[in-house]
């Protein structure tokens, strides 16, 4: 690999990864007057690029636009070694990161999530509480224009949203009626999708394809909100820049980052502070890639916990088809409603913690056919196919995240067999689903089947585990007050390197079962604000 001719000027803050956390940190530092560069191995994606712009969209999402990078294999992707894993972590590598492909479901963690050890006697408590994080949530929600109904009874008082909710539509109303019949908690879906035009986001056009890229530019993917504002505030986003390693100096501080540019040239970018926002797989990978003589086990890894405690939120679903015309091609998707009825521990169920349920529409006839793949041949092919395809507009998908408790053996290391296109070792995933999670998955599927039965579904298809969903990559550089049992402090600063921060899902202590991007961005804002204080203070002293 060629080396650079000249070292660039030192930058105040160097952010690695332009996903949700990277965009929030980049904006926070730039808006505070610091010089900021954000390195991104992918590049920009336009709303007009997404598959739903084209008639063959349901075929495009099977391979070329698949959510699994091992299937998609774009130049921005790196392979993920999943040979020893029960699940296949997925992500999207571009400005906006995996928010390009997320559903923008936007639930906060609950108070008990921060106190799992205290409440249930398992895992660990977080070093911060629900209330510590609340003002950061409120600020992010306001910035990106979260749409929802305030006063959700699953949360303490004081939860409200800046934009009005989306309609639940026929599938959402039907799911809600069933929840009422069963006496369950439910609430109209809270989504980071603009129900009215908001800053750089368009008004939702209910295309129904949120998880395959929003053609409208209404979903809060962080290339469309936060990052444009960061650029306006002076930040630079360098695309096609794959971080190779974090470099440390004799003083023990991070001096900058080596990255590989589009020309294959290795560039050293010096920085006063480095912030890792590369997700729960990419971040530990880079810390391990940064091993040197002074850090033989990887950077910031004196605890030995870098890469450990990987949590993936195993997902399960129950897909129901009805006689009613539900117009289920219509979005958002996005959650139409959510239910926290089974979120907390009930020891009579035989497991601890719980799951978050959400109801979604079921767009596309070919997607309905794919959902029937496990049926007998004659139930799907031949004359049956016409009715299967028709059923797509009459479907409701109940899906759930289950809480994944931290276990040190579930981890990210470096693969000895796979490399990315620049020759860097791929991440290797070692992950096994626990007995607790298996019981939780089964229990949750049974509840979702009940919901369909209560609503009068004519056919129900269940899946107890999606091995290639949901792309919630958490816990691999956990936060804590004790450097012996955590990688970063409660502000994301690594215990070992005073100017190295982590602001992505890696720093979760436990996973909860709420979709995590909401919490990731609130944490990133908290990390970013403290980082600004620290960098300004360090600059004033030097």
């Amino acid at each position, binding site marked *: 690999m060629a080396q650079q001719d000249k070292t660039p000027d030192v930058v105040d803050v160097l952010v690695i990864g332009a996903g949700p956390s990277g965009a929030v940190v980049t904006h926070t530092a730039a808006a505070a007057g610091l010089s900021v560069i954000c390195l991104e191995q992918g590049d920009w994606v336009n709303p007009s690029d997404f598959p739903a712009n084209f008639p063959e969209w*349901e075929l495009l999402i099977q391979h070329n636009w698949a959510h699994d990078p091992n299937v998609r294999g774009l130049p921005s992707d790196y392979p993920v070694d999943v040979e020893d894993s029960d699940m296949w972590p997925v992500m999207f590598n571009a400005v906006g990161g995996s928010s390009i492909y997320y559903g923008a479901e936007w639930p906060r963690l609950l108070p008990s999530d921060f106190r799992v050890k205290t409440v249930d006697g398992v895992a660990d408590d977080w070093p911060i509480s629900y209330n510590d994080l609340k003002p950061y949530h409120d600020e992010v929600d306001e910035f990106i224009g979260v749409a929802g109904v305030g006063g959700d009874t699953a949360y303490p008082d004081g939860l409200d949203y800046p934009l009005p909710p989306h309609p639940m539509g026929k599938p959402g109303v039907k799911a809600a009626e069933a929840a009422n019949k069963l006496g369950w908690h439910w609430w109209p879906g809270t989504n980071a999708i603009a129900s009215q035009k908001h800053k750089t986001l368009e008004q939702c056009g209910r*295309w*129904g394809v949120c998880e395959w890229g929003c053609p409208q530019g209404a979903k809060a993917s962080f290339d469309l909100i936060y990052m444009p504002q960061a650029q306006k505030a002076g930040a630079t986003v360098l695309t096609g820049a794959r971080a190779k390693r974090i470099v440390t100096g004799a003083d023990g501080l991070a001096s900058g980052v080596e990255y590989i540019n589009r020309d294959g040239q290795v560039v050293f970018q010096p920085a006063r502070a480095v912030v890792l926002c590369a997700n729960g797989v990419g971040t530990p990978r880079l810390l391990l890639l940064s091993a040197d003589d002074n850090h033989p086990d990887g950077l910031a890894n004196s605890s030995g916990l870098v890469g450990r405690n990987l949590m993936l939120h195993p997902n399960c679903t129950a897909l129901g088809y009805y006689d009613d015309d539900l117009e289920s091609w219509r979005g958002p998707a996005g959650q139409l409603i959510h239910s926290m009825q089974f979120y907390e521990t009930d020891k009579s169920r035989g497991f601890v913690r719980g799951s978050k349920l959400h109801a979604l529409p079921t767009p596309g006839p070919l997607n309905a056919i794919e959902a029937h793949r496990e049926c007998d041949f004659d139930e799907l092919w031949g004359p049956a196919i016409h009715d299967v395809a028709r059923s797509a507009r009459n479907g409701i998908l109940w899906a759930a995240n289950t809480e994944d408790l931290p276990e040190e053996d579930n981890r990210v290391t470096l693969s000895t067999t796979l490399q990315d296109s620049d020759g860097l070792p791929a991440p290797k995933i070692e992950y096994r689903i626990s007995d607790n999670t298996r019981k939780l998955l089964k229990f949750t599927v049974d509840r979702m089947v009940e919901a369909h039965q209560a609503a009068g579904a004519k056919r129900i298809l269940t899946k107890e585990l999606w091995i290639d969903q949901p792309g919630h990559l958490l816990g691999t550089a956990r936060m804590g007050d004790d450097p012996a049992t955590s990688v970063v402090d409660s502000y994301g600063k690594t215990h070992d390197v005073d100017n190295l921060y982590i602001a992505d899902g890696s720093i979760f202590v436990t996973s909860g079962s709420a979709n995590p991007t909401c919490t990731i961005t609130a944490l990133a804002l908290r990390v970013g604000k403290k980082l600004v204080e620290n960098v300004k203070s360090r600059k004033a002293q030097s």
Partner: protein
Amino acid sequence: MSTPASLRLSVPIRQTTPPRSLTEVEQESLLRIADTLIPAAGPNPKASDTKDFLPYLQLALAARRDAFDVVIAAVSRLKDVAGADLLTALKAMWADDKNTFDPLSAIVAGAYFMTPEVKELIGYPGQHRDPAGLEDAVNELETGILDPVIERGPIYVSAAGE
């Protein structure tokens, strides 16, 4: 990364034609497979009778060009299998060779359900812009549907610090 600046790193190139044209024999075999998997039933035409099926089949083959070789190899293998035996052969492929059957069947079904004629028949308008009316969400909530949940009150488990 050693990639030209013009290459989109995070966006696949959209292809609208397959890697190569099908031979007449391949096309005939593929249409017979399509008609076996998607026969006429009631108001629904068989695949090859659908208006514009062939251009959409080309588009489908292009969209799954990753599977082109394996699919066309199977199509060639089945070219001389006649009538009822073709259904048996496809059932055997479904049972024994998912890596071939799944993309093959996705391509023919994907093409069929892209055609405007079939979309209309099954009531699928396609994904499109359809913004909500100003009052839609309020009207739903004004039915009182959320009242039972509100009446039950808070359900969260308290923990110090909230």
